[in-house]
């Protein structure tokens, strides 16, 4: 099948979702009011609460939610064939992610721009809020561990990208200073920054840095993981304007350039999907597609992380309530487009079916490496760029996203430890350095505990990361659903995705539980049980909250 046909079907579906379904949700379910005074106006303070142009806000929202996860997940999931991944990404974006992200903004805006965590406490109950905190901590833990493993794998496989990836940090540091000290104006700095990044990408292939497979007692992979956590620990302690802010900005520009290059190369090349629509003989040890598909692709179809962004910063800056549809729903569509590009790169970017099969030798293999190699093949043949340079470009794109997420993730984890220090009266835990060490230590434990001392097996936790992420999304959907019940509006549009997610998550956890037990991986078995307990608690919380709200409504009617 031609990749362009699939591309048009996917984009067409998501466009229909935006123009038809989101309009229906906006007018009939959330009933957005253009005259509603949003928190950005009500509490305007020039700092957190600032009414912002909707295109700028969308840019922010999109670049905050899009990262490495919508690339890694779909690129792993195509092992079952392109059709299941494609359908879940497109339908998930239309009926799940869009409604969820859009709803999280709406719920937050209607409640003084509170975060989903606080809303869970207010709308559902105190107990649910505690579960929410635990789930957030688990998500952060897994995202940091998994992304360190992803970047380490990229550094080992694509040695040409080592110089550009680390050089980009230097570029960001310089940009940060230039802007903070107002030495150059921002448009000039943006252009210079992008040029500097691309110069690095072009010289990368000339100066490959290959970490030896064995460094003393450690594997090369493990060394990279340690270096990455060392970097992330330092980066997360720096003031945001020094590194995180300029890095994020450059990543945002890079995201748009990368998307244009990828879609452009598909249009020029029109490659054929070499992977089967549904893979009849998956490698041994691959778990069942249902329910694992729905947790392998979290970001790109629906992700709880977006709810945190929607209710954390976006809702405080929303100029008009009606903008929520564009910012939230279209933000989800943007992420769906990135996931779609990842699917196409990982299934159409190979010359033959045998090449593709050689990439996907086992579950968890392929993944981001398949995205880089497939994408490089398409860019090389479609746009004529040297294949090594194209691979370097895509590796840099994925590694920079993952690196920025690690920086932010460790920062948030540090805040959680510091909050615990506050709650349990441990003054030492409130300090920056010990809290960061605890955060890094717990992530390292997971990265190495999951897959052995060489750190290559860390990708086993990817589906587990998906399940926790979906639980977070489930909690946000629960908040929205309870709000809708109290407003006497139809609840099915959020309740059905919620139930679907819970069923798939719990099923996936049970299947993995058995797999971990059979493998004798007791570390992950324990983690799986923790997530499973959280999932069951969320499900029971849903049932009780909905029952209570409906009873309240019925009483009021009498």
């Amino acid at each position: 099948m031609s990749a362009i046909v699939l591309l048009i079907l996917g984009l067409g579906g998501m466009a229909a979702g935006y123009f038809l379904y989101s309009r229906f949700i906006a007018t009939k379910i959330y009933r957005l009011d253009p005259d509603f005074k949003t928190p950005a106006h009500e509490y305007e303070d020039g700092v957190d609460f600032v009414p912002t142009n909707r295109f700028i806000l969308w840019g922010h929202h999109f670049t905050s939610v899009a990262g490495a996860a919508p690339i890694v997940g779909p690129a792993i999931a195509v092992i079952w064939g392109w059709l299941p991944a494609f359908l879940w990404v497109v339908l998930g974006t239309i009926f799940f992610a869009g409604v969820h992200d859009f709803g999280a903004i709406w719920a937050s805006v209607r409640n003084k721009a509170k975060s989903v965590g606080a809303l869970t406490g207010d709308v559902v109950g105190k107990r649910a809020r505690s579960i929410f905190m635990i789930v957030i901590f688990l998500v952060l833990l897994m995202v940091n561990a998994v992304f360190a493993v992803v970047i380490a794998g990229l550094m080992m496989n694509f040695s040409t990208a080592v110089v550009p990836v680390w050089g980009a940090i230097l570029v960001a540091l310089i940009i940060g200073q230039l802007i903070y000290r107002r030495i150059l104006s921002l448009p000039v700095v943006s252009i210079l920054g992008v040029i500097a990044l691309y110069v690095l990408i072009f010289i990368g292939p000339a100066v490959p840095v290959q970490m030896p497979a064995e460094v003393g007692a450690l594997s090369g992979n493990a060394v990279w993981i340690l270096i990455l956590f060392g970097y992330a620990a330092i980066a997360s302690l720096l003031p945001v304007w020094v590194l995180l802010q300029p890095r994020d900005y450059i990543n945002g520009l890079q995201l748009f350039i990368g998307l244009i290059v990828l879609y452009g190369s598909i249009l020029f090349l029109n490659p054929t999907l070499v992977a089967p629509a549904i893979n009849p003989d998956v490698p041994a040890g691959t778990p069942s597609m249902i329910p694992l598909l729905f947790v392998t692709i979290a970001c790109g179809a629906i992700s709880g992380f977006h709810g945190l962004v929607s209710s954390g910063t976006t809702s405080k800056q929303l100029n008009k309530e009606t903008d929520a549809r564009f910012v939230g729903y279209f933000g989800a569509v943007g992420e769906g487009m990135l996931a779609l590009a990842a699917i196409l790169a990982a299934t159409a970017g190979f010359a033959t079916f045998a090449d593709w099969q050689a990439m996907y030798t086992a579950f968890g293999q392929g993944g981001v490496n398949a995205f880089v190699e497939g994408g490089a093949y398409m860019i090389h043949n479609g746009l004529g760029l040297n294949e090594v340079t194209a691979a370097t470009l895509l590796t840099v794109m994925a590694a920079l996203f993952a690196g920025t997420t690690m920086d932010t993730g460790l920062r948030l984890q540090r805040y959680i430890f510091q909050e615990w220090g506050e709650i349990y009266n441990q003054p030492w835990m409130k300090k920056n350095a010990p809290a960061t060490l605890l955060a890094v230590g717990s992530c390292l434990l997971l990265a190495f505990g999951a897959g052995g001392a060489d750190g290559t097996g860390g990708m086993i936790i990817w589906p587990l990361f998906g399940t926790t992420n979906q639980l977070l999304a489930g909690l946000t959907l629960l908040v929205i659903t309870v709000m809708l019940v109290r407003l006497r509006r139809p609840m099915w549009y959020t309740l059905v995705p919620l139930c679907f997610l819970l069923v798939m998550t719990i099923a996936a956890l049970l299947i993995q539980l058995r797999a971990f037990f059979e493998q004798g991986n007791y570390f992950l078995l324990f983690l799986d049980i923790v997530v499973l307990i959280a999932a069951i608690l969320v499900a029971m919380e849903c049932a009780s909250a909905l029952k209570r709200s409906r009873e309240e409504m019925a009483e009021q009617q009498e």
Partner: protein
Amino acid sequence: MHDDHDKPHDPRLERIRAWLSQARFFAEEVYSSRYRGAIARARRDEDDLFMLLVFSEMMGVPNPAAYYTLELQPLLLERFHDWHKRMGMERSPLDHFKCC
């Protein structure tokens, strides 16, 4: 700037200039709005430390620069109420210096 007024306005040039300033505004918003809160909080933390230095002598903490900081006190008076509230003190910590 003076010369600009004498020259006849070229509408095309004006349009480009307006467009550029718009682009600059957009870029700056994109760059800053996500981190505005975090940066403002970091700056406030620094300012809080400065407040402590300025008012330290009045709270019994010896300050070698008291002679100079005394001069600053009236200037920072406006911020004093917010500061002591932020520091977890319901009322002014100073006996002879009531603010609320």
